[in-house]
């Protein structure tokens, strides 16, 4: 069986050329593995080998970014490797950024799978973790013994086209894509262990870091409601009876737009809810409880609002991904603005 071929990118220090004083050397390519590449080759065993090593000064790369990328890409292209591997950069900032940038370029422009490695606080980690696989290392080269097998394992999986596991399984920095896998212990046991660590002031890793929430400032109040066109929008799943567009009861992939011209009241015969996340009995008896068309018509007659917009928009919030909800909202807002709607009453459940 022939071995998978890899090209390895390292900086001037790991290439044995010199320290900071040599950081301005341009990229050069040498045959075979050098420095950290030897540890990687060892980890690959019989399955893969580094065919060439590109050594590049950190300053030269970062100060001549476009030219550097072009030069290195050409060197990689010549060897047609199965996988490109960079670093690991540990906590070296410019080296980390270079590893991230060149890995991204090789992946996007040459279509070759890439692996790099660095310490979580390396500035390159935040810049590139969502773009390329970055194996998490400790902050110094002393970790090479442990980092090499991790990088090699992921590189081999990529070479073979195998499915990549969750970040915790394949040791890469979380890349913003949540992926399921089976832990060794059940959740309750992990919770007890995490609690004991937290109580005792020991290190633990949360399985889901809290996201930054996207807060939206409210619009200024409407000065004269009696002249405003108001639309109804709901995530409570109210749809014409029979759910003509088959909006899902959970994890909605679409929203519905329905005309309510001349509709004074939603009844059990005409409307229902498609939502699977709450007791549907009361909404099915009288869908106005979720989408208050009856009250809005009253307000319209009494002149409290100018008029009720003749279309309403609906989806099910139940289990629906925030990204989907955002997409629906952008399209709904576009249509409402185009129709000259001044305000919406947004009902949830």
């Amino acid at each position: 069986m022939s071995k998978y071929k890899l090209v390895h990118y390292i900086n001037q220090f790991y290439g044995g050329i010199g320290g900071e004083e040599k950081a301005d050397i341009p990229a050069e390519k040498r045959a075979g593995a050098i420095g950290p590449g030897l540890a990687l080759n060892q980890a690959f065993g019989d399955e893969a080998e580094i065919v060439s090593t590109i050594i590049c000064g950190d300053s030269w790369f970062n100060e001549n970014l476009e030219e550097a990328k072009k030069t290195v890409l050409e060197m990689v292209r010549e060897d047609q490797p199965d996988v490109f591997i960079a670093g690991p950069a540990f906590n070296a900032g410019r080296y980390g950024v270079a590893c991230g940038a060149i890995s991204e370029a090789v992946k996007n422009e040459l279509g070759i799978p890439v692996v790099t490695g660095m310490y979580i606080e390396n500035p390159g980690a935040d810049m590139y973790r969502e773009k390329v696989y970055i194996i998490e290392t400790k902050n110094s080269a002393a970790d090479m013994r442990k980092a090499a097998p991790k990088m090699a394992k992921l590189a081999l999986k990529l070479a073979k086209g195998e499915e990549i596991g969750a970040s915790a399984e394949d040791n890469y920095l979380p890349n913003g894509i949540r992926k399921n896998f089976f832990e060794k212990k059940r959740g309750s046991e992990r919770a007890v262990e995490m609690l004991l660590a937290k109580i005792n002031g020991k290190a633990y890793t949360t399985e889901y870091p809290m996201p930054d929430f996207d807060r939206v400032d409210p619009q200024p109040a409407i000065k004269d409601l009696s002249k405003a066109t108001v639309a109804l929008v709901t995530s409570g799943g109210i749809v014409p009876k029979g759910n003509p567009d088959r909006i899902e009861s959970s994890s909605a992939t679409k929203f519905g737009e329905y005309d309510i011209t001349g509709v004074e009241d939603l009844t059990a015969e005409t409307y229902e809810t498609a939502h699977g996340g709450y007791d549907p009995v009361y909404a099915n008896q009288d869908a106005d409880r979720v989408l208050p068309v009856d009250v809005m018509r009253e307000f319209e007659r009494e002149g409290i609002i100018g008029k009720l917009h003749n279309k309403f928009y609906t989806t099910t919030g139940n289990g629906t991904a925030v990204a989907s909800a955002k997409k629906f909202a952008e399209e709904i807002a576009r249509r409402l603005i185009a129709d000259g709607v001044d305000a919406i009453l947004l009902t949830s459940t």
Partner: protein
Amino acid sequence: MKLELGYIDIKGIRFDDYNAIEDGVLVVNPDELVKPVLEDELIKSAHFEIAAPGESVRITPVKDVIEPRVKVEGPGAIFPGMIAKVDTVGSGRTHVMRGMAVVTAGPIVGFQEGIIDMTGPGADYSPFSQLHNLVLVMEMQDNGATAHEYEKAARMAGLATAARVGELARELVPDEVEVFETPTIAQSYSDELKDLPRVAYVMMLQSQGLLHDTYCYGVDVKRTLTTMISATEVMDGAIVSGNCVSACDKNTTYHHLNNPVIQDLFKQHGKTLNYVGTIITNENVYLADKLRSSDWTAKLADFLSLDAAIVSQEGFGNPDTDLILNCKKLEAKGVKTVIITDEYAGQDGKSQSLADADVAADAVVTGGNANELILLPPMDRVIGCLDYVDKIAGGHDGSLRPDGSIEAELQVITGSTNEMGFNRLSAR
């Protein structure tokens, strides 16, 4: 309270014209067992089927999963306030038919939820795929009762059937016995315990209405204030499920009887921590209820002088608010908190996983992304029916393919992303 659980290992189920447990095999007379179920005038038809691990069988729509147990010593009986008198349970001795469950299934009311595959990729995700299941399939009358009444009829039939089956274990010698003892407040300051961190379990219970309810000693949990219960009472069926919608993260009655947080806290009790009590709190839909219930959680934590707590959630979306409120208020009292949840990160895994968040929630255990897609191949036999697969939470138009295979989110599988930490499934 001190409770002994005596486990009777069940290795198979078969039908015959008598009822017994013979060499670990449950023998049931299905005609006899179904009679009391059919006495309920709301139930049109009912029958039993058997599903064993590894068989090419799909059970759907699943309503509840219940482990047969019987109280052999001590006050009260299994499922107090539901099918037994309301006497306090949780002490004495209880026999458990381990390795099997009574599963209720059939189109009953509302959205028809829950799939258990006994083999194939789906079987890796449901703990009930590994059990010998006695499935009670029911169909309701259409005789003018409300949806809530039909749901109750199905729920009670399942509990009563499990209790009847459990009676067969009364006189048997258990394969294994475990003893659980919860401390009083005074005992929690005994010499052996007083230097260990004081930990409680906060169990959140779904209470959002039809097919989203839970019952404690017969009380609908949405009408309760946050309160305390002995962990051993939970093992005797004091808490039962009335919910199955988005089946992946709903606690069946089986989950309550075998609550893994309770079991794992007991394992550490007296060694690394002092498991001083169990708090139960609801997940109602109104904000005022959420605020009141979470305030009360924090108050009880204060009464107990807790150092730390584990909070388990049930459901997602709306209850994410209750979860975060409980966590924030516990942490604000200085109670170090770990929460157990699951995720709705989208089929591509790129969305925010919870509907609410707070920096105080810095120790999270996850049961996995319920939106992740799974392809369930066709099975040779279907118990129940496939009519509802496109409509259930996690299904979509076209989920059910002509060959009987199902492409859907993990959400459709009963118990797949359980938030008591019942499973090994997780996500990063």
